[in-house]
């Protein structure tokens, strides 16, 4: 209320002052999702302040957007005509909002970056992945990925070597289960559904083939789900898991109530200091056929159709893309940087965990679209709808894989058609 009043007064003051001022500042609204621990927001704000201080033409206003109901937040804002000029967002947000006419493609920016060679700084495939309908709908800034982490203390105590294959993971998880402790931490929410995507992709499968056709019930996917179900049947997953959210799953891992977890690269940064040293990373696991892979998303920055200052937005976007390294080095952002030059910073080079992820996991990461090239709007609906969450819950509840997978396919088909 007060804020909108203040905004109104500010607008009025500006309107009166405008004729007197030779060159009014352009105000841009930049919305950023919360990509890391509390210091992330502080760092991002400082970075925006730096931009505002370095020049006097553009003034960027930073707003931090919580993940809860993010889609509603954006749709509501677009509907209200109060969309930001640019924002970061969920992996498939740019294509989905583009399809609804809300996103302005940045073909010219990409062309300029290509001409200057700057585009080569981006990790292979990230830029092209965001090409949709013949347009570049947003600019990559990070790659979020799910990796296998483990408790060094627990494996050492049981004298178990870190697993490198599915078979080893299963037997280790089983061996580490005793009393209140379980081998594998899992949850029934969105974070839990990443286990499904990751295992399917790990086994060379995934929800889609290269023609964007659904392949939910393919033999490879079935095999991956059977593997997950077997770990559950072994009793190596807490019976409460289906009702857990990601916070509870992580808590169990941090408290040493579980030895393995599939999570983002930022997990150790958010862990209590005393557990941080105990967290190790597994190599990408080899499936029964020797395949490797996991789920990954290209996070990007998109520009909205509602912007009245495209040129200025482009200026800021370019600056932000080049100067955002502190988001990791100081803000401890969770996902890995899309720019190779950032990955060369000691923050990544000197960290065993981060450099390992960049070297070993990034090359095998695939999107929710799995074997399909690029991303497409329906992926957002798939992640939002809860079909895969529900599949996760059924497997964690110990229900039969066959019917659960068939049910998921029926629902996915409804979404895709």
């Amino acid at each position, binding site marked *: *209320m*007060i*804020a*909108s009043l203040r905004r109104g007064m500010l607008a009025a003051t500006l309107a009166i002052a405008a004729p007197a001022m030779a060159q009014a500042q352009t105000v841009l609204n930049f919305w950023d999702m919360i990509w890391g621990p509390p210091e992330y927001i502080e760092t991002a704000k400082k970075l925006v302040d730096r931009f505002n201080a370095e020049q006097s033409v553009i003034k960027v206003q930073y707003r931090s957007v*919580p*993940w*809860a*109901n993010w889609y*509603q*937040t954006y749709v*509501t*804002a677009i*509907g*209200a*005509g*109060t969309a930001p000029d640019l924002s970061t967002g969920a992996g498939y947000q740019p294509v989905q909002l583009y399809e609804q006419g809300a996103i302005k493609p940045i073909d010219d920016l990409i062309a300029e970056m290509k001409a200057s060679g700057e585009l080569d700084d981006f990790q292979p495939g990230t830029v092209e992945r965001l090409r949709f309908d013949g347009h570049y709908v947003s600019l990559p800034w990070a790659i979020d990925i799910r990796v296998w982490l483990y408790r060094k203390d627990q494996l050492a105590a049981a004298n178990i070597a870190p697993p490198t294959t599915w078979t080893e993971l299963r037997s280790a998880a089983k061996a580490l289960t005793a009393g209140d402790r379980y081998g594998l931490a899992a949850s029934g929410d969105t974070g839990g559904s990443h286990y499904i995507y990751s295992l399917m992709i790990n086994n060379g499968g995934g929800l889609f083939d290269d023609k964007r056709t659904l392949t939910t019930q393919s033999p490879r996917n079935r095999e991956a789900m059977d593997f997950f179900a077997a770990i559950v049947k072994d009793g190596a997953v807490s019976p409460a898991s289906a009702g857990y*959210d*990601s*916070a*509870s799953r992580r*808590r169990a891992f941090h408290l040493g109530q579980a030895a393995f977890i599939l999570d983002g690269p930022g997990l150790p940064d958010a862990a209590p200091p005393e557990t941080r040293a105990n967290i190790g990373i597994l190599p990408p696991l080899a499936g029964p056929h020797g395949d490797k892979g996991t789920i990954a998303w290209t996070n990007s920055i998109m520009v909205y159709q509602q912007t009245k200052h495209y040129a200025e937005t482009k200026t800021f976007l370019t600056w932000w893309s080049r100067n955002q390294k502190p988001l990791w080095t100081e803000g401890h952002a969770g996902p890995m940087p899309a720019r190779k030059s950032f990955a060369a910073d000691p923050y990544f080079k000197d960290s065993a965990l981060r450099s390992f992820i960049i070297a070993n996991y990034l090359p095998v990461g695939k999107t929710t679209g799995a074997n399909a090239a690029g991303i497409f709007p329906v992926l957002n609906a798939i992640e939002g709808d809860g079909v895969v969450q529900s599949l996760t819950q059924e497997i964690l509840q110990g229900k039969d894989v066959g019917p659960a997978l068939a049910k998921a396919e029926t629902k996915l088909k409804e979404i895709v058609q």
Partner: protein
Amino acid sequence: MMAGQPRPRRGLRLLAVSAIAAAINAPIIFMLLNSFRSTEEIMASASLLPDVPTLVNFVFLFARTNYVQFFFNSFFIAIASTVVTVIAAALAGYAMSRWQGRLVGGYARMLLMVQMFPIILALIPLFIIFRVLGMINSPFSVIIIYGAVHLPFATWMFRSFFDSIPRELDEAALVDGSGRFGAFFRIVLPLSGPGTAAVAIFSFLASYNEFFIASVFLRDEAVMTVPVGVQMFMQQYATDWGGLMAAATATAVPTFALFMFVQKYVAYGGVEGGVKG
């Protein structure tokens, strides 16, 4: 039948009612107690009572969230929608009390329809209307919707108050030459002061408590109400039980305080209306 029963029986009954009341309110009692315990203590301690009462949760809550802003928004929205509801419902309640016929009968059926209308059906059309009017992420969209949604119970309550005011008084005013509106505003309304207060506080509470509509239309922290803010907090700090309990307790305090003022009117219009679904 009631008086003159032997003492032991009365004592036994008191014991039974106390036990039931304690059991039913257990979640609220735990919430209150836990809001004064640190999350570590809640998770670790086997006792259900705070060992070392602390305010850390409240400090965290007010430091990390815009809770004060949420309260301000909630109060503004609740007061404004109460004004809308009370004005519309008082007039309509008077019409329903004093007239019969097809118009009033039709209106009564319309009220029943409002009562059973799944509000989600209206959300998208309303979203589009408010979009055209530039009222999304604005408190006014929610104020108008609450004003309409809380009409049935408010109208029924007003009607039962007005029914208890003799028609002869209106007629006296009519003879005096001050038409129907004059009779209503000068005679009937002033006589239903306590009733108006009760309706007002109930519609205030219903608006203050509401989550669904607010969560769809208010997605900007500058305009969010307390329940939407708490839900956001709940998703962000899902395992921080101390903080969550503090948020819930702080949210319930205004409701509780206001309810104390009106609880004696609570039986009025009892069956026909209700504070919430």
